[in-house]
């Protein structure tokens, strides 16, 4: 399948497809970061994670509409506010869900899977009732639409670079919060030994709730980024949930570095393959490769050998 292209062409194709994959990569990373916190750290399988992302996308869409109608002068900057709102909205919903549902199920991971799937169905229907069944698209500010010409054959879309930069920033913040801050230590303490953590005075219920909310909030930001590559419908989130889980599992569930590396390899494989074959075959091949590798190395790319 590479036969018709020269080496130079191939190089350009890989770079261009690579940048085309950047937004996908960013969405994967942001989704997976949230999930890595919830699944990797808390052991909760949140099948409604895609719906938290879509909530962020809808919030972004509403913000852009508001700015268009009432603050057209500030439209070029709406995206920043939209992302913050998306984070808050999804985070708040996450907090509510944790309180109503998740906290009863920490000892039954497979059951969280079923319960959150039920939640995702309800959220989908809620979106459909509120926003309608039709997909909505977000209009991007002018400055995000162009592309940077790097060489004669390579052009890089600005929104891709923007989302990418943002993802890097969020990743650094999350890594800092989880590994350097006092709160991150509390989270990890609760994960490793809930009873002991409670005994030394950590408010485990509060830590759980905030952790879950943080994961959901990041999914909301992923939703904001998502509006740049696709239109948003009630069921758009469902399409990403399995991919995201695979990203997290593939990376080794408890490792942030692994999550990023795996999001990168999966999204780049997929978008590069997309150039050579149909979109669906690219997806099939990518998923097959991931499942195949997971069968050979079930602990994921990055995992510690622990003494149990």
């Amino acid at each position, binding site marked *: 399948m590479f036969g018709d292209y020269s080496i130079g062409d191939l190089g350009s194709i890989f770079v261009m497809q690579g940048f085309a994959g950047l937004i996908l990569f960013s969405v994967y990373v942001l989704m997976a970061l949230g999930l890595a916190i919830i699944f990797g750290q808390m052991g909760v399988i949140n099948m409604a994670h895609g719906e938290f992302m879509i909530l962020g996308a809808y919030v972004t869409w509403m913000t852009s509409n508001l700015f268009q109608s009432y603050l057209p002068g500030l439209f070029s900057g709406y995206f920043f506010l939209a992302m913050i709102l998306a984070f808050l909205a999804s985070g708040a919903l996450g907090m509510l869900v944790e309180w109503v549902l998740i906290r009863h199920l920490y000892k039954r991971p497979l059951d969280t899977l079923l319960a959150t799937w039920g939640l995702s*169905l*309800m959220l989908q229907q809620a979106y459909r009732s509120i926003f309608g069944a039709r997909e909505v698209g977000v209009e991007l500010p002018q400055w995000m639409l162009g592309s940077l010409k790097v060489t004669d054959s390579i052009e890089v879309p600005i929104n891709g670079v923007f989302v990418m930069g943002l993802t890097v920033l969020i990743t650094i913040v999350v890594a800092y919060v989880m590994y350097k801050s006092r709160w991150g230590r509390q989270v990890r303490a609760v994960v490793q030994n809930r009873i002991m953590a409670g005994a030394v005075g950590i408010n485990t219920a509060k830590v759980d709730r905030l952790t879950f909310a943080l994961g959901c909030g990041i999914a909301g930001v992923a939703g904001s980024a998502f509006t740049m590559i696709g239109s948003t419908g009630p069921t758009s989130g469902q399409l990403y949930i*399995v991919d995201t*889980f695979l990203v997290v599992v593939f990376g080794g569930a408890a490792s942030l570095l692994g999550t990023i590396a795996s999001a990168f390899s999966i999204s780049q494989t997929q978008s590069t393959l997309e150039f050579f074959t149909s979109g669906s075959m690219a*997806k*099939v091949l990518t*998923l097959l490769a991931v*499942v195949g590798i997971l069968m050979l190395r*079930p602990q994921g790319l990055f995992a510690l050998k622990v003494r149990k």
Partner: protein
Amino acid sequence: MTDNRFTNRSELIGILVLAVFLVVILPLCLDVFRLNLVAKYLTYAFVALGLVICWGYGGILSLGQGVFFGLGGYCMAMFLKLEASSVENTKIQSTPGIPDFMDWNQITSLPLFWQPFHSLTFTIAAVILVPGLFALVIGAAMFKRRVGGTYFAIITQAVAAILTILIVGQQGYTGGINGMTDLRTLKGWDIRPDHAKVVLYFFEVGLLFICILIAQFIRHSKLGRILVAMRDQEDRVRFSGYSVANFKIFAFCVGAIFAAIGGAMFALQVGFMSPSFVGIVPSIEMVIYTAVGGRLSILGAVYGTMLVNFAKTSLSESFPELWLFGLGGLFIAVVLAFPNGLAGIWQDHVQPRIDRLISSRKPKSESGWTDNSVADGAPAE
């Protein structure tokens, strides 16, 4: 303790009640259209039954049962489609004698893997063996490496996603998103008219009871007890000299084969097969049938399936927007409040009352511990 290898007395009563319900009451009370709906629901009951063995007893939650349902269904549908695509029926095509969707996709000869599906014997063998072997491969790859629980669930989901995308993408070979439609005859016998539907219904109920008896046999064998033991204390079983992986593979394969039989019956009964029964969404929905019925109850699986589907049909007919709320709420309610489903409610609230009613009339005959500790077990996890 019972010496019977299939049932004890109270279970036997339960099976007989279900038999009377399915064989006598429903056919007498329902018109052919409604009976055919029940027949469609029952095809999912096979899947739910398999999940009782694999999830309820074995603790292996597969979110990809649609894969096996689909594989069984597609095997059957391929045979029926070939029969419906005789040269005579398809003479207006540019290549007569091949399925219509192949012709639309500019395929000019029957692909090699379709050839053996001219034979009904091969097809029936394929309905069992293709999903069975596929489950064997997945199961061996995962369980031999000690992958289980949530990881296994996610992988099976990915498999469901892969197969759906593949079927939709390769429409020249599979009929794509529309699936295989317009299935007509089975060895010359028209499967579409009402009387054929009724015959198929009774055939299906017969098959269902065979599967129920197989499930009962497994449950009452030592293998059934080992599955229960494994669910809580996998290491203890392993260090009692059992290969835990082999038992899990067995349970997973049984679940897959039951699902495949359901899929094949679906193709016969409903007259088409499409990727919308293969993917993640239908696969998880099949899990909820089992959960509602009670993940540890063989008969509960049948009732749960019928109940959820009945609710789905009536709700989505009259209040389509309520259905997803209802289904979602059902998931949550079952998990939070009734982890053992209908069977659990029956056992905890109804059965004791009946027992009290009986024992208040009769002198107390036997006391002590019940012999159905397996059914009383706590939910997995």
